[in-house]
């Protein structure tokens, strides 16, 4: 018996029991569709997170106080676990900004942060306030839709000026244009609006469009007075290029170790690069994808057991047929091939339909996300298609082997006598 014949016979036999074949295939369809959809959603999430981080700028470095590897906590640096640590100061920032001490660092921007109440007229909202220096706009690639960013004059004069994120402007003014010169109150103190930022859209850390910026000196003097006069929360640094990021980390670390006089191996600060963020987040989304795919894989497994079940029923039902085929000269191999072909055909068919369904589900999820204002495009990868196709074929083979070998090992005499 050639393979083509076996295929033809398997088709005939599956066609003879359409309802049953259909239900069996359905199990695999659901499994494969789930795997494809889950992997697509997971990959899409990873891609969108990676994209939004890359948009921040790949040369960016973050320096926090405290020896802690990890992303920053909400609204501030990660809490420290070292009681002897020193805070980061403006002095540290200036030392790092020194082009001779740290040639790989192009620019430094110290930041103090806090959440505060902003009011205009009757409208009140809480927004993250950052006290920043003029260089911050360059380091973070901030663009203004109107007005100007904080400059040295504001900084030196400790002027009460504010640059609003478009979301915050919308909340308190009901619009985000034509608000220059208005005076808002932050924690009751009046601030003149000098600029509004361009909307960046939602990122994976949540939207940055709510952020409100005031001069660093003003913040230290009036609003964020905690800690020492020169203490800062985060230090942003920009490496001269993407290639020098690692060097910049070393330079910054060395300067801070000297200045803080920390013993070797117990730094009281943390330098994170974009790569670190990317890696952490990719690990998280990777785990998420595997988790989702695993759950979907279970349903594929259940589908496979369905195939085994049906094939066992089919073998029992066709015991006489098997006996007859053996009497006519079918070898074990022939019977094995016949039943394996049937089970693989079932699972492959399910696999193909499942891919289509999975793609459809992923597409729908993308559309729903788009309708809700998030740019999120599920990615149906070739790898996912190959994976689930080969996986479903393997499942057909694996779960087909037992019933098929049971059929192949039937004694012809017994099988022929079976009623």
């Amino acid at each position, binding site marked *: *018996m*050639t393979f083509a*014949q076996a295929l033809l016979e398997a088709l*005939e*036999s599956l066609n*003879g029991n359409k309802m049953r074949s259909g239900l069996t295939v359905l199990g695999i369809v659901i499994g494969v569709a789930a795997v494809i959809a889950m992997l697509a959603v997971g990959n899409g999430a990873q891609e969108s997170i990676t994209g939004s981080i890359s948009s921040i700028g790949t040369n960016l470095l973050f320096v926090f106080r405290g020896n802690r590897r990890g992303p920053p906590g909400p609204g501030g640096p990660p809490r420290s676990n070292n009681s002897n640590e020193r805070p980061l100061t403006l002095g540290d920032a200036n030392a790092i900004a020194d082009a001779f001490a740290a040639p790989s660092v192009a620019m430094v921007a110290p930041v103090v942060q806090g959440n505060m109440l902003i009011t205009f007229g009757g409208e009140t909202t809480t927004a993250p306030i950052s006290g920043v220096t003029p260089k911050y706009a360059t380091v973070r690639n901030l663009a203004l839709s109107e007005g100007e960013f904080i400059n040295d004059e504001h900084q030196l004069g400790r002027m009460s000026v504010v640059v609003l994120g478009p979301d915050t402007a919308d909340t308190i003014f009901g619009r985000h244009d034509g608000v220059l010169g208005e005076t808002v109150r932050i924690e009751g103190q009046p601030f003149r609006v000098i600029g509004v930022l361009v909307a960046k859209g939602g990122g994976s850390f949540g939207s940055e469009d709510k952020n409100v910026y005031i001069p660093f000196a003003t913040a230290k003097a009036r609003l964020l007075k905690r800690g020492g006069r020169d203490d800062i929360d985060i230090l942003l640094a920009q490496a001269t290029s993407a290639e020098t990021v690692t060097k910049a980390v070393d330079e910054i670390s060395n300067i801070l170790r000297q200045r803080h006089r920390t013993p070797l191996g117990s730094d009281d600060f943390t330098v994170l690069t974009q790569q670190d963020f990317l890696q952490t987040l990719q690990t998280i989304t990777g785990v998420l994808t595997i988790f989702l795919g695993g759950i979907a894989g279970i349903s594929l497994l259940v589908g496979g057991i369905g195939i085994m079940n049906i094939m066992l029923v089919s073998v029992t039902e066709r015991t*006489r*047929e098997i006996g*007859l*085929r*053996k*009497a*006519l*000269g*079918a*070898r*074990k*191999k*022939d019977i094995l091939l016949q039943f394996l072909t049937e089970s693989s055909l079932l699972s492959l068919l399910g696999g193909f339909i499942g891919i289509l369904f999975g793609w459809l589900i992923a597409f729908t999820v993308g559309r729903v996300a788009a309708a809700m204002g998030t740019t999120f495009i599920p990615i149906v990868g070739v790898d996912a298609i190959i994976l689930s196709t080969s996986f479903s074929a393997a499942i057909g083979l694996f779960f087909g082997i037992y019933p098929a070998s049971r059929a192949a090992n039937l*004694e*012809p*005499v017994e099988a*022929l006598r079976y009623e």
Partner: protein
Amino acid sequence: MDLVIEARNLVKTYKMGEFTVEALRGVSFTIERGEMVSIMGPSGSGKSTMMNTLGCLDRPTSGEYILDGEAVANMDDDQLASVRNRKVGFVFQSFNLLSRLTALGNVELPLRYAGLEEGRRARAQAALEAVGLQNRMGHRPYELSGGQQQRVAVARAIVNNPSIIMADEPTGNLDSKVGKEIMNLLLNLNKERGTTLIIITHDPNIAEQTQRIIRLRDGELESSGEKEKAEKQEAEAEKLEKQK
């Protein structure tokens, strides 16, 4: 003498729990090529076991069995399958046709397992013509009468030009008129093609139509039927002489 079947001291025992059942207890006989033999015996006499052994569906526990020059007793499963395919044609009481396949498809089955690709269809058609079903080739079993179904089964049995045809109660599921037709078909095949025919039956009317009757009782050979056959032939010869 051209022997197609040579059975020597065949023993078959089954283990059923703690008991061993002796279905065959040392049976020996021979069948010549072209002979038409029936095997008779009451139920429990070892008839079915004998048919399974002669048809290479099962191996004897001990003893020797040579089918058309091949010692079958010690072959493995796949070798037995090959021998069945080439040398044995089966006709069953309940036809055993595959309902999904057409008459032609059913007849083609043994050729498929023989690995024959070219001329398969033509040979299957020829076999169906030989049993008079040239107009029913595309029909499926449920579209055929019982007699027609058994004809398809006979065509399937002869399509590989086997050394022997094993027919197990071939008329058991048919009314007497159709049964007679099938018997005539088998007798004609034997006469015209010289195919060795072995019919397992408990119906004396069927058995009498064959040249020789092998009788089994309690797993032993009661009579190999060769004496009766010789007497019959003598009687016929005498008859012929008297007529002269």
